């Protein structure tokens, strides 16, 4: 399901009211060890959504999968480890070239693994 490049069907190529939605330049970043692409400046969550990534984290108590819920930085369901910092709200944190994004398990990386920093 998760493509390394974007599936155009998940993006709106042209919008009947908004026309073409302006985006930054296409950049690469790391998601769970793979190199993927997104547009610079768009929220990480949106870039992941366009890649088909739905699960951002697994909860601490019940290990439930969570993804985007409010998309405006309120609910904090979409938090991930970004550049080594857990609990980063990916819906309001912009994509930049070379950032490292990891799925969050509880408040840590998978199996207590390292939080990768640039």
């Amino acid at each position, binding site marked *: 399901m998760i493509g390394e490049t974007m599936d155009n069907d998940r993006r709106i190529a042209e919008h009947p009211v908004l026309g073409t939605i302006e985006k930054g330049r296409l950049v690469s970043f790391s998601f769970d060890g793979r190199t993927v692409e997104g547009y610079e400046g768009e929220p990480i969550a949106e870039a992941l959504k366009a890649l088909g990534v739905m699960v951002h984290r697994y909860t601490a108590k019940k290990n439930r999968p969570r993804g985007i819920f409010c998309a405006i930085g309120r*609910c904090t369901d979409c938090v991930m480890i970004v550049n080594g910092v857990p609990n980063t709200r990916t819906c309001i944190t912009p994509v930049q070239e070379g950032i490292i994004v990891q799925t969050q398990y509880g408040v840590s990386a998978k199996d207590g693994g390292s939080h990768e920093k640039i």
Partner: protein
Amino acid sequence: MNEVNDRSRDIGEFVPQADDDMIICRCEEITKGEIRRAVHDGMWTITEIRRFLRCGMGLCQGQTCARLVKDIAARECGVPYSSLEPATSRAPMRAAEMKILANEK
């Protein structure tokens, strides 16, 4: 504020419900059943329920579940929804890194 509230008032027994396992507070993963149980343990205010269970005390600070918890608690206590005082609002209104809060200008 400061309504006389006799904590020995009979609110009936805890009766299990089919959806007790449903998560209400997403951040702290508190279920409907836990909230209802807490009411029967004497937690009759939103503040007490929060302090006892942590619901509404997670990352989002109750922005998502405040209404839901209040609704469940009011039903369980047998009081009108609007009679329950919401939790205190506290700064910082948005979570902020210590290094930012420490850096005053």
